[in-house]
């Protein structure tokens, strides 16, 4: 699947990925509606609640939907970059938490620092922490040959329990009542855009998507990443690519993007650290990246789609009583629909027996 996504030349360039995405979304929507009807809910009412919850007004769209989409863009970019390089980073969730911890720590520790120093410092710390959180899986992959799928997942659990410990222990608020940290200094918070809750993290994420797209498409480094992802053996045999270094770089950068997602979430939305800060952004990111065909610009659209779903799900639960966890079932449906649509398109193009 990934190998195919990596070789857009072999599919009809304009229609292929787009058609797969649209077909997949249609199929997933129909299945989701059928599931709701089966469970005894009114799918039309649920759909209306979802749309009005996500798009009801500009205020709501900016304050809820785009705010939700922001961490999905950053983690989606993280996953897309890793998968492009053939690295199975399933650990964006843990890397996000590592970044959130670092940003909160900086924001709490240097309250007197000026904003021009504190905010970038906190964001840099978040990115570095996210990168560091990949070091164990990277080391095990490159040194011991242990696959990163399991190790990154295990690191997610380590991160979640570590956060639980921090907010019950060393970083707990001064009052000591709730398992959360004190709010970070004002100077460590991202500025708001307009009157709503939309914060500067959103444009930053959009710019990073553009930058990553350019890097992957037009830089020598991007070429090496794509080559290693397409076939690490071929890349190694070519003799011109240091494959270990490329894997290391892509893995670290992927972790940094996910860590930044955690930092942005803390500096822009929550201002404090607590358990369940992320409703599984790091896992949704996999659906985002796949729906986007691993293209950083398309990640913007895919993250927007899941932002709509998550924003709408809250309204759906409030108005129609559909449990909000339905969203993760829909995410799974989208992933499966994307891979199925991809397989069918490919078979159709390759002719019989080509699949």
């Amino acid at each position, binding site marked *: *699947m*990934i*190998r*195919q996504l990596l*070789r857009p030349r*072999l599919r009809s360039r304009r229609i292929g990925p787009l058609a797969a995405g649209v077909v997949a979304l249609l199929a997933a929507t129909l299945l989701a509606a059928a599931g709701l009807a089966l*469970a*005894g809910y009114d799918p039309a009412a649920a759909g209306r609640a979802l749309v009005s919850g996500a798009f009801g007004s500009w205020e709501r769209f900016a304050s809820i939907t785009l705010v939700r989409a922001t961490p999905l863009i950053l983690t989606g970019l993280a996953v897309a970059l890793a998968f492009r390089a053939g690295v*199975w980073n*399933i650990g964006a969730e843990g890397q996000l938490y590592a970044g959130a911890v670092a940003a909160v720590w900086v924001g709490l520790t240097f309250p007197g620092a000026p904003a021009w120093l504190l905010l970038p410092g906190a964001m840099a710390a978040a990115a570095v922490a996210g990168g560091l959180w990949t070091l*164990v899986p990277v080391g*095990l992959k490159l040194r*011991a*040959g*242990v696959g990163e*799928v*399991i*190790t990154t*997942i*295990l*690191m997610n*659990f*380590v991160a979640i*329990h*570590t956060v*639980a*410990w921090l907010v*019950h*222990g060393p970083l707990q608020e001064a009052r000591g009542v709730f398992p959360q940290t004190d709010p970070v200094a004002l100077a460590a918070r991202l500025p708001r855009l307009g009157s709503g809750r939309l914060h500067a993290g959103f444009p930053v994420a959009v710019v990073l998507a553009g930058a990553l797209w350019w890097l992957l498409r037009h830089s020598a480094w991007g070429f090496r990443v794509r080559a290693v992802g397409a076939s690490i053996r071929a890349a190694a045999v070519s003799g011109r690519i240091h494959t270990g270094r490329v894997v290391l770089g892509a893995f670290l950068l992927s972790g940094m993007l996910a860590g930044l997602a955690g930092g942005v979430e803390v500096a822009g939305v929550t201002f404090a650290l607590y358990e369940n800060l992320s409703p599984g952004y790091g*896992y949704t990111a*996999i*659906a985002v990246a*796949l729906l986007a065909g691993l293209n950083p610009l398309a990640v913007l659209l895919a993250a927007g789609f899941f932002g709509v779903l998550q924003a709408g799900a809250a309204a759906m*639960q409030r108005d129609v009583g559909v*449990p909000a*966890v*339905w*969203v*993760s*079932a*829909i*995410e*799974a*449906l989208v*992933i*499966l629909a994307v*891979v*199925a649509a*991809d*397989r069918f398109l*490919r078979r159709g193009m*390759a002719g019989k027996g*080509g*699949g």
Partner: protein
Amino acid sequence: MDAAALQAFLEASVRLGAPLALAALGETISERAGVINIGLEGSIIGGALGGALGALLTGSPGAGVLAGAMAGTAIAGVFALFAITLNADQIIVGTAVTLGGLGITGVVYQSVFGATGTALTLPTLPALPLPGLSALPALGPALFSQAWTTYLAYLLAPALWYYLFRTRWGLELRAVGEEPTAADAAGIRVRRTRVLAVLGAGFLAGIAGAHLALAHAGTFAEGMSAGRGFIAIAVVVLGRWNPLLVLLASLFFGAASALQFELQAVFANVPYQLLLAFPYLLTLAALAGWIGRSRAPAALARPWPPRSGE
């Protein structure tokens, strides 16, 4: 640690290790056939909910285990459809199946029991002391005074070892996992073998989930599988794809998990949230120290038929 505490620790080790063993033994077979199923977690949580609902509806924990096994098999069936029949990427399909399993069990649970979740009390699987064996000193009660699902794990380990390494069918299954193209040329039906292996693994993972709900907790909670599917996959690596070693590795991890309760008692000043991370850290450490000496089936996670020209 006095004798009674040691007894309790050993008993807890086996009780926590048994669901890991069931899931990991199934995954051993599917990996030997060349399929890595990251969706195992989805089958476990499905089995837990299926087990809970089945036991609740019938009042019989045994029927609950069967319902859990069916739920686990059904979820594995989704994986098999996409990863084998459609030949899509195993890692991606497995991730989706786990996400979907956690989501759908949450939806079903909330729509049956309400969003807040009432404290659910289920009929539990009783401990069945085996006459004679359970009276052995020290290990007797821990090993042989457990729910019957635990004994299933003990019996399956040697049975699956014999199947894999001493029967023609086992040889064929391993051929599918090592050299599927050669196996195909030899007349072995590669896809059918893989689908059956995956369904069998889902069946066992479903029993593992039902065991969690019915032998451990006596209740169901969303996300109660808590990553056991992923640990089971790591346990398969540690057990070098050999059912006997996989059973031992599972019990070892059961002991590691049970140890966190002991450590809580001994090191009262170590926060328990850190102890909760202990099994995951231990798994990582074990993978780091151990892996060099084992080799995965050659065709593991590779699509088949190979997608040349794509």
